[in-house]
C-alpha cells in the first residue's frame, strides 16, 4: 500500500487537477459513477488505485464499490496501456471470417497476448466483442491520441503491414 494513502487527506488534489472539473460537475449527482470513471480513464488512460481512492473521496462512494463497478465493465482498465490500443473484433462475423488467425498474426508480430502491452509501450492488444462493422470482417479499431481508426477486410499480411507502418511513424 502506498504511504500517501489519499483516502485520508487532500494532498493529491494537485495530482488530479484535470479530473476536478469532472468531479465538480458529477460527484454529487446520483448515478454518475460510470460517467466519472469513463472521464477519468479518458484523462489518465486507465484507473489506478490512487484514482479510485480519489474518486471515492470526492463522491463518498466506497473504494470497494468503485472497484466492483470498474471490474464489471469491459471498458475499464486497471493497468496503463500503450500509445496505440488495438481493439481486435471477435464478433461472430469476424470469428466466422477468421479473426483468430488475425489474432495469431498480431500476437506473433508484437510478441504479446490479449490484454498485454508491448515492452516499448507502443501497443496494447484487446479483444473486443463487436465493433459493428460486420460486413468488413475481420475488423480492428486502433485508438490513439490521433483519434480512432478502423481497418476492415484484414488479412494476416495486411494487419502486420498496418502495425509496421504505425511503428515506423511512432
Amino acid at each position: 500500500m502506498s504511504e500517501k494513502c489519499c483516502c485520508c487527506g487532500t494532498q493529491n488534489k494537485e495530482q488530479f487537477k484535470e479530473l476536478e472539473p469532472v468531479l465538480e460537475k458529477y460527484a454529487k449527482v446520483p448515478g454518475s459513477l460510470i460517467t466519472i470513471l469513463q472521464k477519468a480513464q479518458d484523462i489518465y488512460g486507465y484507473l489506478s488505485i490512487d484514482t479510485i481512492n480519489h474518486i471515492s473521496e470526492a463522491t463518498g462512494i466506497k473504494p470497494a464499490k468503485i472497484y466492483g463497478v470498474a471490474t464489471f465493465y469491459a471498458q475499464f482498465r486497471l493497468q496503463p496501456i500503450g500509445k496505440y490500443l488495438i481493439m481486435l473484433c471477435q464478433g461472430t462475423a469476424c470469428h466466422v471470417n477468421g479473426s483468430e488467425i488475425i489474432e495469431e498474426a498480431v500476437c506473433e508480430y508484437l510478441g504479446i497476448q490479449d490484454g498485454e502491452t508491448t515492452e516499448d509501450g507502443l501497443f496494447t492488444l484487446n479483444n473486443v466483442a463487436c465493433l459493428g462493422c460486420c460486413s468488413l470482417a475481420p475488423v480492428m479499431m486502433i485508438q490513439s491520441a490521433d483519434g480512432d481508426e478502423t481497418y476492415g477486410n484484414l488479412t494476416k499480411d495486411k494487419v502486420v503491414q498496418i502495425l509496421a507502418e504505425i511503428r515506423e511513424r511512432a
Partner: protein
Amino acid sequence: MKVIIGQGSCGIATGAKKTQAEFEAQIAAKGVNVEIDFTGCVGTCYLEPIVDVYEDNGDMTRYVKVQPDRVERIVEEHLVGGKVVEEYAIAPEDQQFLDKQQRVVLRHCGLINPEKIEEYLAVGGYEATQRVVTSMTQDEVIEEIKVSGLRGRGGAGFPTWFKWNAAKGNPGKNKYIVCNADEGDPGAFMDRSVLEGDPHSLIEGMIIGGFAMGATEGVIYCRAEYPLAIKRLEIAMAQAREKGFLGKDIFGSGYDFDLRIKAGAGAFVCGEETALIASLEGERGMPRLKPPFPAAKGYWQQPTNINNVETFANVAWIINNGGAAFGAMGTQQSKGTKVFALAGKIKKGGLVEVPMGLALKDVIFGIGGGIKQDKQFKAVQMGGPSGGCIPADLIETPVTYEDINKTGAIVGSGGMIVMDEDTCMVDMARYFLDFTRKESCGKCNYCRIGTKRMLEILERITRGEGQDGDIELLEELAAKIKDGSMCGLGQTAPNPVLTTIRYFRNEYEDHIYNHTCTAKSCKELISYEITDKCVGCTACSRKCPVGAISGEVKGQHVIDKEKCIKCGKCLETCKFGAIVKK
C-alpha cells in the same frame, strides 16, 4: 452539382475520409463548382466507399468502391465532362440489393446528412412530433401504435403499445423513457446505422413515446464502442433543442421533454432491462427479479419504459403514414418491416430491410447474393448468443417471430450470420458459450458455473478429447441453466448449443467418436498432407516454422506429422495446390 460521400463507420473504415480529401483536392484543382457533403450508411457495406453524384435536376449516379485512385476520373469525366463513368457506377445486380428492400427504419439512411437538421426537416422530419404533441391525446398515440402491431425490435418482440400503456397507467412523480442503444449482439449493426445515419428519427420516436407514456425525460444508453454514433446523436440533440423540438413547451403544446445520452461501458447483460437500469444508476449491471417490472418501478424507482433504437425509428413513420399502413406490411402476427444485418460468409453483406414474413432464402440468396466463392450454404445464425443456427434444409422458413422461434433460434435484434461448409458447428457453439460465459454477471449459479462447465465440454470436443455421453451431458446442463437462471441471458445461453446439437448432431459425433472435424476447421483434428501434385519447389519447406517438411528439390515433399503444428503456412504458400487439409 453535388457529391455525397457515405460516411458511416463502415464507409470510414474502407477509406471514405481519404476519398473525400481526394475529391476536395481534385475539385479545387479543376476549379469546378461542386458541393461536397456526406451522409450515413446506405446499407451496401460491401461496396464502400460509396459516392453519389447528384445533377442539378436531381438525377443521381452512384459510384461504388471509390478509393482515391478512382476519384480523378470521376471528377474529370463526370463532374467536368458531364459523362458518367460507367465502369465505376453501381452494377445492376448490386442495385437490386437495394431495390428489393422496403425501407421504413432506414428510410433516410444514406440519403440525408445526419448532422444537418434542415435535411431531416426537408423530408418531413418532426411533422409527426408536432402532430402528436399538438393534436393527439396519449391514448390516441398508443392506439395508433397498437393498430400498427409494432413489436420490440431488440429481441423479445413484445408489443410496443402494451409497454407504453403500462408505463402510462402506473403512477409516478417522474416517468422515464429509455432507449437501449447498447447493441450488444455481436453481428448486429442496424442500430449503429440508424444512430449514425438518421439520429433525428430516434429522437422523434422518443419524444412521441415519452408523450404517450407521460415522461418528461429520456435517456439514450449508447455503447461506448460507437463513438461516431454518440457524436452524431449529440449534434442532433443540440439542433433539436435549438429548434425547440426538445426542451420546454414543445411546439407550444405545453409538453416538456428533454433527452440525454449515457455511454454504456461494455456489458452484454445490460441489454436486459433491469440490468440496464442498474447501469444507468451507476451500479454494476446486474439484473433483478421481476416483478416489479420497469413499467412500475424502473429508473430511480419510477415508471420506466425501455425500447430499442430500431423500434423508436419506426414510430414517426407510423404516425405519419398511419398504423394501418405499417400493419399492412408483414404477416398477421409479425407486422411491418425488419432490418437484418447480413454478414459472415455472404457475398453481399450489409443492412437489409424487408417486410416480415419473407423466406430466409429470399434474404440470403435473393438479396445477399448467396455464399462467398459459391461454396455450400450450411446454416444461418440468428439472434446472436441467445439465438441458434438454422440449417440449410429450413431455408424456406419465413422470417417472423413465431416461425424463427419454432426452429430454436430467435429473430433477436436481426443479425444473420451466414455460414458455409468450412464453418464447424461445434466450434460455433463453443464460440457463443465462450461469449456468454464471459458476459454472465455471475448472480445465478447455473449461469455462472454452468456455462463454464458447458464451455469446458465443448472445448474438449473441439480438441478431439470428447467422451461418450458428452452430448447428453451438454443437453442436461443446458436444461438446468435455462431453468436456473433469472434473466434472459442465462435462459437463452444454451440455445446455440441446443440448436447445433439438434441439427448437426452428426458433427458432434464426428468429433467425439471419429476424431474428425467435418468442416476441417478444428486445428487439433486436422492434418496437412502433400499430394503428388508437388513439383518440389521447396517453397513450403522454407516457410515451415518448425522444419516439419522435407524432400529433395524437384521431388515430392512430405510433412512430418509429429513435428507439424498445423499453422497452415504451407497451404498458403503452395502455388500448385499440392497441399491438402484432411
